[in-house]
């Protein structure tokens, strides 16, 4: 069933639609939450509150044709608010200072399969050079497979900023991977000639 129809069913008070939305997205939502905090209890509370909330406010909540991004917006806002509880001024821009955990975990199979130059460990190392926001955008794009427009909504930034985050992120990733290659090469040279 398409998102707009599932959502309109929810708005009409169909409890089965709520359950379906829950089943469809709970795992991805949990994954997303874990990039912000390791506190499972907090994550469960945030997820619980959000589902109770969208049911109770179903008459007044807005329309969406992308349920996952709608839920991510709400989850992200709530999570950051609760993590930053001590801070007086809460700003979404604060994510940069948060200890987010968007670390990549490349699969092993692809290396032999595609015969490409991508090495799992090198990629994971290179990923650490990216900013939190670049990592989050890349996570939403390549893991949740969101469209650029959906990422705009979730991260609350404009289209060009999303494109820049991802473009610069990918570029940096590729540069750092090449750097790692060069470093390894130099080390080998040193071993061969200067020992």
């Amino acid at each position, binding site marked *: 069933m398409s998102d*707009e*129809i599932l959502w309109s069913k929810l708005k*009409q008070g169909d409890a089965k639609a709520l359950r379906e939305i829950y089943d469809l997205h*709970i795992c991805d939502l949990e994954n997303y939450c874990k990039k912000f905090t390791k506190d*499972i209890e907090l994550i*469960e509370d945030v*997820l619980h509150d959000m589902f109770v909330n969208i049911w109770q406010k179903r008459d007044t909540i807005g*329309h969406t044709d992308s349920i996952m991004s709608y839920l991510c917006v709400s989850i992200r806002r709530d999570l950051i608010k609760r993590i930053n509880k001590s801070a007086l001024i809460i700003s979404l821009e604060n994510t940069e200072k948060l200890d987010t955990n*968007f670390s990549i975990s490349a699969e092993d199979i692809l290396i032999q399969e595609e015969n490409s130059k991508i090495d799992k460990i090198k*990629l994971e190392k290179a990923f650490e050079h990216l900013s939190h926001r670049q990592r989050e955008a890349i996570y939403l794009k390549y893991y949740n497979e969101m469209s650029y427009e959906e990422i705009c909504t979730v991260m609350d930034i404009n289209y060009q900023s999303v494109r820049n985050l991802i473009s610069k992120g990918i570029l940096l990733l590729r540069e750092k991977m090449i750097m790692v290659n060069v470093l390894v090469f130099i080390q080998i040279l040193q071993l061969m000639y200067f020992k």
Partner: protein
Amino acid sequence: MENKDTHNFINNLVEDESFISWVKSDFTEDDDIWSQYIDKHMDQMDQINEAIGLVRAIDFKDDNTIDTKKLWQRIESNIQIETPIKTTIVSSLHRWRLVGLAVAASVALFLVFRPGFDAEKIVNTGIGQEITETLPDGSDILINADSKITYDTKKWDAERNVTLEGVAFFKVQKGSKFTVQTSQGRVEVLGTSFSVNQRDDIFEVICKTGKVAVTHSASSTTVVLNPGDMSVIENGKLVLKSAENGVTHKITWIEGVYTFQNASVSDVIDELERQFAVEVEVPQGIDSTMYTGFFNKGDLNKALYAITWPLGLTYKVIDNKVILSAE
């Protein structure tokens, strides 16, 4: 080390939405496009491979530890879901009568539906009603108030054909040709979402995603709609109103919003009556006045205010009757 063009070439691929979904779907989605692309760019196979490798490599750990069943129970216990409980206790005396009734009912059903011969399914919405119908292939139709759709469940696999009287939004699964027949003309698509409005002599189609072919029976003309385009009938001719300069035509009724652009007041009142199941009394001479604006399906009073205020009218609601009068 690496020149700028190669760099851009790989980056462009890695950031391309269609490319990403092709790689992430294990080369099934949009495969025809990318197979062709690769044939044309054989000399750049190394870079393409690197792009593929990178998209596949960017992955994040699945990290699921929450007991989702338990969490759902907690959510469920904190919301009041009205589940109608139907328990009927039938006394043994009445049971036989019920069996008799059941037999009679199944005979009647057999007579009406003639199973095996007729597999036509009709879905009819009343005034103020909105129904979602899921078709055998998983396509969805959101049927607006006072509308009717008909389709053949048996022939569905052979031809995806729906007859529509009224207004509906279609979200069509990819597959063979999908046709919507109306008295004014037909709409043909492969897999997309669009809305059709065919009331009286209106025949209005708005395309939301994909491509839609609209054929007008009377003038036997066809136009092709891209996302954001709309087709209407003007002076007996099929006219394409394309999405230009960022102005796209939107299907607002599926969000509960009814918009009007230079519509006659009588058309607006008709829609209001249809959506709220009310009867509206209009002062004389106002029918042909033009109205531009919108109303929301959520609240009758707000909707009435949105319509009457620009027209300089006041309204009164008595049960399901609405009386409009000049100020």
